[in-house]
């Protein structure tokens, strides 16, 4: 049986990689994918605790997190397309003001 702390360590490592990616990357789509990675890293924690404590609530949380991630993907990609249409670039440094 794999210890619980290994799953927590894996989740922490993935979350850190995702957070570093959001800070490092300048491409809006790449930042978006790093955010998806962070959401997934928390899901590992939820499922690990749910499986170790024999309580299904954590997995229901994961279900709802996935729904929120899907909604975020739809709206986020819509925003990215709108930004690209206005500025013809996906660099977030070019999109530093909200008005067009």
């Amino acid at each position: 049986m794999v210890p619980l702390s290994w799953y927590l360590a894996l989740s922490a490592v993935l979350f850190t990689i995702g957070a570093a990616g959001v800070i490092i990357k300048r491409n809006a789509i790449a930042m978006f994918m790093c955010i998806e990675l962070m959401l997934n890293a928390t899901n590992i924690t939820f499922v690990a605790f749910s499986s170790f404590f024999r309580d299904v609530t954590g997995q229901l949380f994961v279900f709802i997190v996935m729904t929120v991630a899907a909604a975020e993907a739809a709206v986020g990609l819509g925003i990215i397309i709108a930004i690209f249409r206005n500025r013809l670039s996906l660099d977030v440094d070019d999109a530093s003001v909200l008005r067009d």
Partner: protein
Amino acid sequence: MTILIFLLLAALTIGCAVAMVAQRNPLYSAIALIGVFLGMAGIYVTLAAPFIAAIQVIVYAGAIMVLVVFVIMLLNVEEEVRRPIRLRRLVPLGVLLAAIFFAEAAFIIYFVETSAYNPPPATQSNVGLTASVGTGLFTKYLLPFEITSLLILMAIVGAITLARRVSTLEGGRTRLRATEETRSQTSAD
């Protein structure tokens, strides 16, 4: 045996995640992210959560990543250009803070590892099977589930509103410009 499988899947997941961040071409990052999601699905299987593993493959690796790849192809994204680090003198401070952060995380993980909690014996539990997830979702957590459907509806409407071509606004601007031009012409005459 389980530990070996876990280590393999964890190595796949972390390797793909690092490749995703290190990659400059967004399309290659997207493919690496699909690898991360597949590795995570395997990890969910080792945690005895087959429903979540299936949802992971279907929703993330299937739906969301198809959407992302579609947008990357649609916008014809170019590779990122390499730029110098602007705050080079802050790098030692950053390394120090990262070391403190990692020490804290390692302490917490060590604390969890040596805590006195004994998990219940590994009986034949049905936690994680589709039936138990469905039962929880439609009895105790019915209201959050319904709110989730509302959220999806709002996301659909929001995405359509955002990605729509703002034809009325553009049309209004060109019309305004045309009237201004005719007015200036008439005044010049």
